[in-house]
């Protein structure tokens, strides 16, 4: 294996959520933009500290819900009142009252699918390979460790300085991850 390794990121591990949050604020103050934090469970206030925008997922869900409602109304009206009107007990061919249960169910069904598919799309999942997956410290992020990763594509990235910053911010096991 003589292939030249490309630096991907400098990573540091934290065990304490307070120290993590403090470090993220400092990393952002230092001007870094391309960094990510990997945690075993959602940390309160982390997205504010990282300066993330609100998720756009609710709009996708709303769109799904409206599509479901539209589908349900159209389906019940067109099949019952247009394509094949069938008199059953003198009931109207279409009325909003009897359409409510199916309207509701299809709204919920389409919202659920839109939410899950939208979630996967926003997260770019499924993605069965991670550049970092061979790093033991990184894998601990699904167990008990918070991993801060400053990526090499950041304009401020420098192996020495970024490493020094994370060390100053109290990270353990600061390391360069290459591929």
């Amino acid at each position, binding site marked *: 294996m003589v292939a030249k390794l490309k630096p991907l990121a400098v990573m540091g591990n934290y065990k304490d*959520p*307070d120290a*993590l*949050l403090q470090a993220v*604020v400092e990393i*952002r*103050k230092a001007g870094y933009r391309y960094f990510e*934090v*990997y*945690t*075993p*469970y*959602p*940390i*309160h*206030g*982390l*997205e*504010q*500290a*990282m*300066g*993330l925008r609100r*998720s756009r*997922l609710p709009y996708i869900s709303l769109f799904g*819900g409206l599509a479901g409602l539209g589908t349900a109304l159209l389906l*019940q009206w067109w*099949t*019952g009142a247009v*394509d*094949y009107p069938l008199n*059953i007990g003198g009931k109207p061919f279409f009325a909003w009252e*009897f*359409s409510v*249960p*199916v309207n*509701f*169910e*299809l709204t*919920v*069904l389409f*919202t*659920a*699918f839109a*939410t*899950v598919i939208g*979630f*996967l799309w*926003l*997260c770019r*999942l*499924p993605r*069965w390979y*991670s550049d970092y997956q061979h790093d033991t410290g*990184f894998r*601990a*992020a*699904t*167990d*008990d460790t918070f991993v801060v990763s400053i990526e090499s594509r950041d304009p401020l990235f420098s192996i020495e300085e970024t490493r020094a910053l994370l060390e100053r911010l109290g990270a353990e096991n600061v390391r360069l991850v290459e591929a």
Partner: protein
Amino acid sequence: MAQIAVEATPRVDREPLRESLVLGNPTLHDVTEKIAGIVDRPPTWKYWLTLSVTGLAAAWGIFCIGYTIATGIGVWGLNNPVAWGWDITNFVWWIGIGHAGTLISAILHLFRQRWRTAINRSAEAMTIFAVICAGLFPLIHLGRPWFAYWLLPYPNQMYMWVNFRSPLVWDVFAVSTYLTVSILFWYLGLLPDLATVRNFVQRRLPKAIYSFFSLGWVGAARHWQHYEIAYLILAAISTPLVLSVHSVVSFDFAVSILPGWHTTIFPPYFVAGAIFSGFAMVLTLVLIARWVLNLQDFITLKHIDNMNRILLATGMMVGYAYAMEFFVAMYSGNEYERYVFFNRAFGPYGWAYWTMVFCNVAVPQLFWSRRLRRNVVVTFIASILVNIGMWFERFVIIVSSLHHDFLPASWGYYAPTWVEVSIYVGTLGIFFTLFLLFAKYVPIIAISEVKAILPRSQPQHHVPVAA
């Protein structure tokens, strides 16, 4: 003001104001070890023994389903006027059991009830398996289940569409939506935990399987942000969904004109009963899992206490509905209505009625006492009795209303045959088999959620956000 106060609070280890939700003060890694470890260890002989018993029951039930389909539903005890018997009773019972799972995972999430984290995963799994069992019954009851797809609106050579004015079609939409959304919700919640298991197990094949199903989840903060919103939205839509499903099931009865079924109280009455029976089944399952898998630190007496309170509350709602049905029948002045209810309590099926009242109204009254709410044995017995009582509730509603209708000349009596009993036992087998497989191969407790509620797992200080 509030913000300053938070910043100024020094970090001290105070006595918690509330009883801790996780006992034994585990670290984050202990939680992983304990719950992912269940997946990693080979099953014990106890597990194989239970699985073979439930598997045998499931196989026998499936055989009897095959026998019914091959021969026709004449092998059941159904007659005229009792055209709905154990099959529809079981359908409503199973659907109702599913409701507690959604209640725990969705409604308690919206109400920020943190104690739900210990039981939500198994309750959601229970929902899915219960709805699968429920769905079997109307399909078999069709008589020609190979035409089940006629229930769906699809363009066909007959140029016919389904009748959207019929509650039975609403039911198809409600139950299939419920099953689908429950699976999506459950799987979304599982993603982070599957990733934890993926990184925990060492053996190749399990690692490959968990890798596949965890979809490459790595726990990035950007992903968690979308995840939490997705979870919240699914909880928000599941909440009205769970109320709608049993309402729609109750429309199957309430929209007809049969005395005893034709009542406006049915939707809320059915929903309360569903939650009541569902919590009873959650308690049954969770108490067994807690004992078999040694989860006493995660499923604590406080959890059991809380669930028993819900049992008490919903049990009294159901009791109120029983009383109100009688009052309305009396007050209606309608002689058929009055007769049906008198006959319900004192007629040929009176024994079923009083079993129901005893199990559903009397038994939960035990839980006024804190000592009994925290007694595992009492809770277990009571939960089984409630399951039985709620089965009888559906039986009473369906069969006692049907067997004596308007014309005395067409009155009849209904008793099940061995085939119906076997199919019911078979669905219990299918349900417990699926649950056992789940308990072994899927993290039975939501690992990431339990970690998030451990003491000091969240930042204690308010960090000023950089501008």
